[in-house]
């Protein structure tokens, strides 16, 4: 009853909230659009007046100073066209004579312009003639413009300075599509907010009420199940809350307690009678003893020591989700704009390409996380998970805040290293926390919770960060990341204090030795999976998402918010498809095929940029990448066990997985570096294509290697 029932409630509530939010966002966008049009058009009109005044000077010089007539003017159409092309807000410029006849034009004039120009000349003749100096222009020109055929037309009279004679009129058409284009861009951001709000809703529902409800329903369900199996034993943990579920549970627990007490009383009375009774008296008790014996055989009474995860522990496991989500969100917030931020800070270093310099802070971050994690795991065990997380998140908060004030590349490298150390510490400590607070029964649930928090943060972070960076600037967005990090510290402090309770099933984290790493790196089976699948998959992921996409999008003239949207699409594909692909993988389908297919799909994506490049094609690349990664990611991890059985037997599971993860994370570090080198030689498009070709090649090789391996196994079998 509990899981499905609760999910139904969640989705109904989430659906209702999302409908209301969608309506709210639409209403807010509509009214904001109206306000924009009211305020932006006059501002553009003012610009039109300034531009018009400058153009007016040229016309005046030709027609008043040099006494040239309209017929003698040359190249005016070209000049007006150039002005239109240089100012995105302008759709057209027309120069009309004193009678309102359009003599020269640039851009596309709105329908009805000729009639309007003539009407204007007729109606405003006297006002124009009063104009003597350009500074008075603004005061007599309506900067709001008059709507003519879809353009707001601002009129600027051309008047001789000395005699106040009207020479003609400049009509500048402001594109109403300009405001609509701004609103469309805003709507895309609003759509991102909508998606982020959806995930926030689910996260907050779980954080505020869901976890408690779920554990409540789970407790109720377990209590009923125990009674159904004839177990009337009581536990010291009685429901104390004031929620409906707690009250139901309390009633059942008291009913069970009452039965238990009756049994205890009966047992006491019966034993009392039996002790010291004469034989004939004992005979009279035979029926009572038989009935008591039946009772004892059929039901379980007495007190129970919980073997399951106690309710407090269930709560403790759930409590890791909020701080982890907040912490990862802080880092993910920076993904979409970090490369462009580094680029803006860039001070050239002799002999090193700027492309490589841009990748350095990202590579360093990945490298620290990759190398640090195996060592920090053991360290967090010693000093405590909560302490490690507090320590790590505090270091990262300092790193984010300092990054916001970074002056150049060198100090940025230091600040990003702090963020990386913090990230590695929180990541391993949170992983350890899940292990510490879950039993074998609910470990998978614990890790689903861990991965879920990270995935939701990857959905919400980059897109929100891109929007923030575009609007308030990258430095302020780093400060916001620091604030979120501090918030995560506060929530981490709410976690239960560490207890040394590592059971027999948990051993100290073992760090692989260099010898073991070397041996595994020379092992064919291990390297087929790691070198041809795991590392290329990470190279393409970080090379594309953390380096190429944010920079290429900006080079195409798009925004950081657009880069964020791309990463959002990637994250959503992952959130939706990874569980489905994992289900297929676990259901016994051949995992090698999933991995090979994933690599090939990831590789094919980048090839669409072979001939041409635009924002839409980058979207296609990201979608292919998301599909490929989603298909292969779950199977890859599981394949270690499938393919490297002899190695696991020889070195141990922890060692083989440890080396696998280490090399996989090294791929994370190599990705941006390789991408930056490729950009130097082949530009952005070429880099996309080259990495894709590499991954495609690895995918095909992996397929051939594992297919031949499988066939050999089948023949042996």
């Amino acid at each position, binding site marked *: *009853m509990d899981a*499905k*029932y609760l999910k139904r*409630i969640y989705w*109904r*509530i989430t659906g*209702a*909230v999302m409908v*209301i939010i969608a309506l*709210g*966002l639409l209403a*807010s*966008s509509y009214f904001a659009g109206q*306000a*924009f049009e009211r*305020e*932006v058009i006059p*501002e*553009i009109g*003012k610009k039109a007046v*300034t531009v018009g005044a*400058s153009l007016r*000077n040229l016309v005046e010089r030709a027609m008043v100073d040099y006494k040239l007539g309209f017929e003698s003017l040359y190249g005016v159409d070209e000049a007006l066209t150039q002005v239109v092309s240089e100012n995105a*807000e302008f759709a057209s410029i027309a120069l009309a004579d004193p009678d309102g006849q359009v003599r020269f034009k640039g851009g596309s004039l709105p329908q009805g312009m000729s009639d309007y120009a003539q009407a204007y000349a007729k109606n405003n003749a006297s006002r124009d003639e009063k104009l003597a*100096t350009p500074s008075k222009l*603004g005061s007599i020109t309506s900067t709001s413009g008059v709507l003519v055929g879809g353009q707001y037309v601002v009129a600027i009279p051309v008047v001789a300075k000395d005699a106040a004679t009207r020479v003609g009129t400049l009509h500048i058409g402001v594109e109403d599509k300009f405001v609509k284009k*701004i609103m469309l861009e*805003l709507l895309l*951001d609003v759509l991102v*907010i909508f998606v982020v*709000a959806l995930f*926030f*809703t689910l996260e907050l*529902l779980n954080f*505020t*009420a869901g976890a408690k409800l779920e554990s409540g329903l789970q407790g109720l369900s377990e209590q*009923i*199940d125990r*009674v*159904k199996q004839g177990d009337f034993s009581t536990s010291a943990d009685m429901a104390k809350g004031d*929620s*409906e579920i707690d009250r*139901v549970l*309390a009633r*059942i627990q*008291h*009913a069970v307690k*009452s*039965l238990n007490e*009756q049994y205890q009383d009966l047992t006491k*009375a*019966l034993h*009392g009678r039996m002790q010291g009774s004469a034989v004939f008296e004992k005979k009279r008790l035979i029926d*009572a003893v038989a009935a008591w014996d*039946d*009772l004892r055989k059929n*039901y379980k009474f007495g007190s129970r020591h919980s073997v399951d995860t106690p309710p407090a522990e269930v709560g403790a496991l759930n409590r890791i989700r909020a701080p982890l989500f907040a912490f990862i969100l802080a880092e993910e917030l920076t993904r979409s704009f970090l490369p462009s931020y580094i*680029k803006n800070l860039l*001070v050239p270093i002799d002999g090193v390409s*700027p492309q490589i310099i841009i990748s350095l802070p990202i590579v360093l971050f990945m490298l620290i996380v990759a190398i640090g994690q195996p060592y920090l795991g053991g360290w967090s065990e010693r000093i405590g998970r909560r302490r490690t997380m507090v320590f790590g998140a505090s270091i990262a908060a300092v790193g984010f805040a300092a990054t916001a004030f970074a002056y150049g590349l060198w100090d940025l490298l230091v600040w990003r290293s702090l963020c990386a150390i913090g990230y590695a510490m929180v990541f391993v400590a949170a992983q350890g926390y899940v292990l510490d607070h879950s039993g074998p029964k609910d470990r998978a649930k614990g890790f689903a919770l861990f991965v879920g928090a990270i995935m939701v943060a990857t959905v919400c972070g980059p897109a929100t960060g891109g929007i923030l960076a575009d609007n308030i600037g990258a430095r302020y967005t780093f400060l916001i990341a620091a604030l979120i990090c501090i918030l995560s510290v506060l929530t981490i402090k709410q976690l239960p204090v560490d207890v040394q309770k590592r059971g027999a099933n948990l051993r100290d984290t073992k760090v692989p030795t260099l010898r073991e790493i070397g041996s595994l790196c020379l092992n064919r089976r291990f390297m087929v999976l790691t070198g041809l699948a795991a590392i290329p998959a990470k190279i393409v992921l970080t090379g594309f998402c953390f380096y190429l996409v944010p920079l290429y999008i900006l080079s195409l003239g798009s925004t950081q918010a657009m880069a964020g949207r791309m990463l959002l699409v990637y994250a959503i594909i992952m959130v939706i498809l990874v569980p489905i692909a994992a289900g297929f993988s676990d259901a016994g389908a051949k995992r090698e095929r999933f991995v090979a297919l994933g690599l090939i799909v990831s590789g094919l994506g980048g090839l669409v940029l072979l001939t041409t490049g635009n924002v839409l094609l980058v979207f296609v690349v990201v979608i292919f990448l998301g599909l490929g990664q989603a298909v292969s990611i779950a199977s890859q991890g599981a394949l270690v066990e499938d393919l490297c059985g002899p190695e696991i037997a020889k070195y141990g599971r922890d060692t083989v997985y440890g080396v696998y993860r280490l090399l996989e994370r090294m791929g994370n570090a190599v990705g941006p570096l390789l991408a930056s080198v490729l950009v130097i030689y082949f530009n952005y498009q070429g880099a996309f294509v080259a990495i894709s070709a590499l991954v495609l090649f690895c995918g095909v090789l992996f397929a051939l290697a594992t297919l031949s391996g499988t066939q050999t196994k089948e023949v042996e079998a």
Partner: protein
Amino acid sequence: MRTTRARFIIVALLVCFFAIAMATFLNYFKYRSTVSEVVKTRVLYVADGIEDNVSASLALGLPFAEMPTIQALIQRERTTDDLIAGIELFDPAGKVIYATEKTKIGNQVATDWLTEATQQRRGSGRPASWTIAQNSEQVVAVALRNNFDLIVGYLTVRYPQRYVEIASQKMGLELLKIAVVVFLVCALLCVGLLTFIIRRFERDMESLVETLQEAGAPIVVDESAELPEGIGESLAAYNLQVQSAQNQINLARKHLRAAMAGAPGAVQDIDPEAPQDSAPLQPQP
């Protein structure tokens, strides 16, 4: 359950607030950046005109510091737009050569301007213009280059930052009003719709509580009660077990009482308050 309902509604209101606040925040910054850009390009248009003139004079071989028309030109251009607070042209060392405020000629420009200009020159690519905020003014700067693409100086056009701020404040206020109204409507809808949806959940739980409250002992599941999916059957099985256990306890008690009936004084051994054969099991509230 009221606390659960309140929690759900608070979450809904929080998320609504987040979404509408974020949208308003975006609208505000979009407006601000749009107006800033329009104003900047408006001022830049004037700067470009001056730059063209300087380039033409440089092409004629005139030294940057000795161009006779530039001072008059910048004075004239200054009057084309009331927004412009001042125009300055300075050499790469930061010495002002021409200025709309003549007292500034010969002075050194602010260090920030020169630092920014140097950084822009050293940076990758060659930006057409850049902006510096200084005190209450926004400064748009353009590098002036000769035919050999060498920088001979810089042109800056200043305008008051307050102009964009006032426009943004006005729009901000308007957007805030829109946001408040939209949020209030959304909040009302949230409370109404969620109360309606959560009511179903509450009814499920209430019927469960009523079932337990009314049943006495052993707990009897009211067949007509609308219990949440699955829990009705669970409770029926639960009920059967409790009833069966109670019956067996009662049977054992009955035998015990019967056995003790023949033994005087034995009754005291049993708790006088103990439930009788058919005594209901009293669940504690």
